[in-house]
């Protein structure tokens, strides 16, 4: 027999189950692979990089810790598992250092410092996620969504998650409730890397359950309880599936809640734990401020687990109570009862309840007149949801459709493309997170990305959405703050009482090295400061709010002594001074908003006007710059109050902090003439003079505006140059405010603005408001002349080698002619017409002799996505077209062929069919066609007015 001697001695059991720790961890990693792969597919390689960074960080920090503590290296894969799970929890475009910091936190602080594997007090990945959420809230909530135009690879557009208020578009064109749910199921929505695609999670979870790595009780009961709680808290069955599929709940249910060390060891306790998780998750989501409650719920329940382990010991086999009876298995039956009750409730309630839309929203009827907005809804939280559609004129035509969410704080929260071109996609980042004023400021041409037309259309659509909100009468209105206010960041009319809510910001210079950013939210109510809420200010040098709260504008303006007693350093005083300035600005802005007067367009400095409640008289906000030195221009803003033709008050809004202040005494109390005549604005300081000069120009503009407002006359729309018309008190006669521009050269377009005064059929005077310093108009050509004389002017050159002054003159000539036409209209017994297709006004023309009609319309050039506005004066005498004066028509040369019409009768014109001019473009023909229709309408009137009419 063989010598049996090589046997070893060991204690029983002699053969163990094949499962070991490393195998378990490997199984978890394998189960996570589908999520990693899908996450990379949806979000790009950067997402994979994040996961890798996180994993490596976790592994390395664990080994470094072991090295420092002189412990053996751990070769179980638990750090890898933590790393992958945490990586999959990050938003797909999180900065790389988030992965590193989270990894170190999870491993070193949550796990290693408490004793390593099996001794962590809470799930490391969940705790690290909570930590990152608190420390880097912004980066952690900026999610991107998978691209839904059919490509799986995300294009990185920011999308709010479902819980963050984002809307979910239907998948594969399937609209409505189930379309949205299907989208969320497959992950076509915003979220962190691993948590969006439910099938991947289920696959991994199934693998783990088959391999007996996780207890099926935890995920199942967690989901069951969550569904039940959603039913209870939101009273909506339709909310269940979306809530389950979003916020990482599925992922956490299978991978994070099932962490061994931090979940109960007994099956019944696991059910209780899962129930607790479900309850907390939904309660935090419903009633708390964080949109997703999963990580917090896990953290909280983890902390409860040791207590459960101590107090809820399960009944042993054969265990007896003290009186000798078998100990009842309370927990077992209680847990079973709870689960069955929840399941039964769901089974009964869910099919019966109406599947409302994804969150309860009320429909707001929108009028048909909106160009883009098709539907509008509002939810309980005050978010607005729009469906906007447009047809773009790109080659081949493109219908676009978006679901837009505008949040209750009045920024664009989310734009979900429903339909857009695969190739020309809107650059959503231009608009998301922006307010109305920011979107309005985006110049229409400044939208690169190769989808300019799409972007332009989207911009229009968004602006219309805001208008829809305003029109619907919702009190939360944001107002654009006029240019010139330096502190005000945003202005919202809040609540239903009409309070004015301002956010004001500034950088306060404490000393040469330090600036302190300040930010406050100011609420004005009934013309008093109702409250000031500090958002950012120095911890040490705080503003003394009691100085300001409850005071009116005058009281705050009068505050002189803003020092804080006991404040050795002056910084708090500086803060108070800054706050005083900011509050005064708020009052002014509110005043300008409430009592606003419309300022004619074209002024250089005037930004806003108001029938002021704060000041006696009319207030004008003038904004401009003074060129102090060749390199430095000082921004200036003043509120100029005019009363009874004089400057009654000038309020500083913005001027130099370095003593280049305007010498107000030069101006206060003077009238237009006096100020106009001021030549010596010198105070001895060359720098200050520049400011005075600018201020003088501003004040003059205010007087002009005042004149126009005071004596305003209504002119129909459609004039090219005339911006406002008035009976001038300043100059006597009729004043016309004309604006235009002249192209000096390829790079420079010079804006022009003049006040043209007509009296007795002649130009009595011309005030230049805005023109080039160099190429000024030669006013002598025009003053004192009649319409005919000015019409007849041909040589407008000034002998100037540059023809620029000539260009200015030419423009001015056209402007003045228009003024004559307007004057003719106004003095000819003008009656405005409301309901005609083209005729805006009719009058008796003194200039031409006959019945004159002012007509406006469009030439429809839709293939160029362009409607050419047209305005003409048609004079009819003795049944024939006497003359046609163009007021506005194409600048590109598609001018109407007037000879077709002049001198003809109505019948002849009616019979005109060939309106082509031989012009290869068809645009002139369109113009002619429109003009023909316009003229016929005039005749129609004429026929009714004269002839045999019984």
């Amino acid at each position: 027999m063989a010598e049996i001697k090589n046997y070893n001695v060991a204690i029983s059991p002699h053969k163990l189950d094949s499962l070991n720790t490393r195998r378990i961890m490997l199984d978890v990693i394998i189960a996570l692979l589908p999520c990693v792969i899908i996450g990379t597919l949806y979000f790009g390689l950067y997402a994979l990089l994040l996961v890798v960074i996180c994993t490596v960080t976790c592994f390395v920090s664990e080994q470094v810790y072991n090295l420092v503590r002189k412990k053996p290296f751990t070769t179980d894969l638990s750090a890898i598992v933590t790393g992958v799970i945490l990586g999959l929890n990050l938003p797909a475009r999180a900065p790389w250092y988030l992965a590193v910091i989270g990894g170190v936190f999870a491993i070193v602080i949550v796990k290693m410092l408490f004793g390593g594997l099996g001794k962590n007090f809470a799930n490391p990945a969940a705790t690290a996620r909570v930590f990152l959420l608190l420390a880097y809230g912004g980066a952690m909530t900026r999610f991107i969504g998978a691209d839904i135009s059919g490509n799986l690879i995300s294009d990185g557009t920011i999308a709010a998650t479902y819980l963050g208020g984002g809307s979910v578009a239907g998948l594969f064109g399937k609209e409505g409730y189930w379309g949205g749910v299907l989208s969320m199921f497959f992950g076509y929505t915003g979220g962190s890397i691993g948590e969006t695609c439910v099938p991947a999670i289920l696959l991994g979870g199934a693998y783990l359950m088959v391999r007996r790595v996780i207890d099926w009780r935890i995920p199942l009961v967690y989901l069951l309880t969550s569904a039940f709680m959603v039913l209870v808290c939101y009273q909506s069955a339709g909310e269940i599936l979306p809530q389950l599929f979003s916020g990482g709940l599925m992922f956490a249910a299978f991978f994070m809640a099932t962490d061994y060390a931090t979940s109960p060891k007994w099956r019944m306790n696991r059910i209780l734990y899962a129930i607790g998780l479900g309850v907390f998750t939904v309660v935090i989501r419903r009633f708390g401020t964080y949109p997703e409650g999963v990580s917090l719920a896990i953290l909280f329940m983890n902390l409860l687990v040791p207590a459960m382990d101590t107090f809820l010991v399960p009944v042993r086999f054969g265990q007896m109570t003290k009186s000798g009876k078998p100990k009842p298995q309370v927990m077992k039956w209680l847990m079973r009862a709870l689960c069955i009750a929840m399941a039964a409730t769901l089974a009964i309630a869910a099919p019966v309840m109406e599947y409302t839309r994804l969150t309860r929203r009320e429909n707001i009827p929108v009028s048909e007149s909106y160009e883009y907005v098709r539907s509008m809804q509002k939810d309980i939280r005050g978010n607005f949801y729009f469906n906007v559609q447009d047809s773009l004129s790109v080659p081949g035509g493109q219908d676009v459709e978006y679901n837009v969410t505008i949040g209750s704080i009045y920024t664009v929260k989310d734009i979900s493309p429903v339909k857009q071109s695969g190739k020309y996609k809107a650059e959503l980042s231009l608009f998301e997170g922006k307010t109305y004023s920011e979107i309005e400021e985006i110049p229409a041409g400044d939208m690169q990305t190769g989808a300019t037309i799409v972007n332009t259309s989207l911009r229009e659509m968004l602006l219309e959405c805001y208008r829809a909100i305003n029109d619907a009468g919702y009190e939360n209105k944001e107002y654009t703050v006029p240019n010139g206010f330096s502190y005000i960041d945003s202005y919202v009319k809040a609540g239903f009482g009409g309070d004015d809510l301002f956010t004001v910001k500034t950088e306060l210079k404490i000393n040469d090295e330090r600036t302190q950013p300040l930010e406050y939210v100011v609420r004005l109510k009934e013309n008093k400061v109702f409250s000031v809420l500090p958002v950012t200010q120095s911890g040490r040098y705080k503003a003394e709010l009691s100085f300001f709260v409850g005071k009116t504008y005058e009281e705050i303006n009068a505050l002189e002594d803003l020092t804080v007693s006991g404040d050795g350093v002056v910084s708090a005083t500086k803060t108070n001074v800054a706050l005083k300035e900011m509050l005064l600005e708020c009052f002014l802005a509110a005043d300008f908003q409430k009592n606003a007067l419309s300022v004619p367009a074209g002024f250089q400095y005037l930004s806003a006007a108001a029938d002021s409640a704060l000041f006696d008289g009319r207030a004008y906000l003038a904004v401009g710059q003074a060129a102090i030195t060749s390199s430095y221009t000082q921004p200036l803003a003043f509120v100029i109050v005019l009363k009874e033709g004089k400057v009654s008050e000038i309020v500083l809004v913005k001027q130099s902090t370095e003593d280049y202040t305007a010498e107000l005494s030069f101006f206060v109390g003077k009238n237009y003439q006096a100020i106009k005549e001021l030549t010596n604005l010198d105070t001895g300081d060359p720098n200050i003079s520049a400011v005075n000069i600018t201020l003088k120009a501003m004040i003059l503009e205010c007087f002009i505006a005042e004149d126009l407002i005071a004596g305003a006359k209504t002119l129909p729309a459609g004039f090219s140059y005339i911006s406002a018309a008035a009976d001038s008190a300043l100059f006597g006669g009729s004043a016309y405010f004309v604006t235009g521009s002249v192209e000096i050269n390829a790079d420079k377009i010079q804006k022009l603005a003049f006040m043209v005064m007509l009296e007795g059929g002649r130009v009595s005077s011309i005030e230049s408001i805005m023109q080039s310093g160099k190429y000024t108009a030669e006013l002598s050509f025009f003053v004192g002349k009649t319409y005919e004389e000015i019409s007849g002017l041909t040589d407008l050159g000034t002998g100037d080698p540059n023809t620029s002054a000539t260009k200015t003159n030419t423009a001015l000539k056209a402007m003045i002619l228009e003024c004559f036409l307007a004057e003719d209209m106004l003095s000819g017994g003008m009656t405005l017409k409301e309901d005609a297709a083209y005729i805006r006004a009719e009058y008796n023309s003194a200039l031409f002799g006959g019945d004159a009609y002012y007509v406006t319309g469009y030439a429809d050039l839709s293939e160029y996505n362009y409607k050419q506005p047209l305005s003409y004066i048609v004079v009819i005498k003795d049944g024939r077209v006497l003359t046609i004066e163009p007021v506005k028509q194409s600048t590109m040369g598609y001018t109407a062929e007037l000879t077709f019409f002049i001198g003809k009768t109505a019948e002849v014109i009616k019979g005109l069919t060939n309106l082509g001019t031989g012009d290869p473009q068809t645009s002139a023909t369109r113009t002619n066609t429109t003009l023909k229709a316009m003229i016929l309408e005039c005749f129609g009137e004429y026929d009714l007015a004269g002839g045999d009419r019984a």
Partner: protein
Amino acid sequence: MFTFANGVHPKGCKYLSAEEPIMRGPEPKQVYVPLSQHIGVAAEPVVESGAYVRRGELIGKAAKGLSANVYSPVSGTVRGVVGHITLAGKKRDHILIENDFKDESVSLPPLSEISRESVLGRIAEAGIVGMGGATFPTAVKLGVEEGKVDTLVINGAECEPYITCDYRIMKEYTHELIQGIKFTMLACGAKRAVIGVEKNKPEAITVLKEACGGEITVKSLKTKYPQGAEKQLVYCCTKRVIPEGKLPADAGVVVVNIHTAFSIYKAVEENTPCYERVMTVSGKAVDKPCNIWVKNGTLLRDIAEFCDGKEDCARIVSGGPMMGEPVFSLKVCTGKGMSSLLFLDETECESKSAEPCIGCGKCVSACPMGLSPVFIERALFSKDYKEAKHYGAEACIGCGCCSYVCPAKRFLVQSVKLAKKKIKEKGI
């Protein structure tokens, strides 16, 4: 299928020896018959050095208290009472008999009447102890007060892997077994008997079902370890729960192993005392796995030779792989309770080193008694025995399920046993 909670499913590996009919084992040159083959006080020798004994002759008398008789398995000369190494590693008294290979035998006097008292007396006289491995003197177990026990449960579960001796007995000595069961019923006063057999022995179940009848029924049980543990077996066969800390008799049940019942038959009907037993020799490190009659006191080396043990034997185990004791020397000899000898090669056994507990709770899911080995171990390490008791250390049956499943390969069953011992010591 109705079964007890938890438990594990180790690989059965019974195919190695299940089809080997019972045959005669080795005829050893010398036997070292242990005086203590049972729980309780060792028997006192009644022969001296140089005496001639025959097979079936009393050589050790039951001592006062809990004890059992010891009989000579061979005929030959007593060489003396020697100290010999036991499986536990201690030197204990053994009676060394040199076999003269003449096989002269004596039997016990036939019983005049079959009654409870006489059967009980015969059982005691024959030195029958629990042959499933517990070796508790059967007469004491069966000798409960009148009317206390109404059901006899026969343990045919044989839940440990490799072991097939009970299975072969069920198949080959079916009628003897049934008769033995009847005697046992008489002895304990039970009105009915249930033979619990695991489902992995279908042929045995069939044969038994045919043979039994009336008050004796066969219950087929789910194949799960530790189905053969007393409390679990009783629960599955009779749906009765034995309260913690109590005996089966308190639930009106008595549990007896198949081989024990067979030995009772042999003692009562064939007047043969207990001096040999059927053992399974199995494992991949023997050429000839078999079920053999082994005389008490046979050196393990003789068995190894008999079955052609191989050189690549990595471990020798007495009993099953779950609860069996490791054999450290082939000089150890068999006894009434050694049901099997396993020669395991590398693939069939493993050495382990404990890793940190990951808190998976698999031990809790595996424990058939509903204990929490994870917490008991933690309490033990922090020397908090009260807490260990709180988590149920006292109720441990030592089945080893917890150690079996632990992914971190921790020594859980040993920790719980230690905690149990400490609790008893400290009187908590």
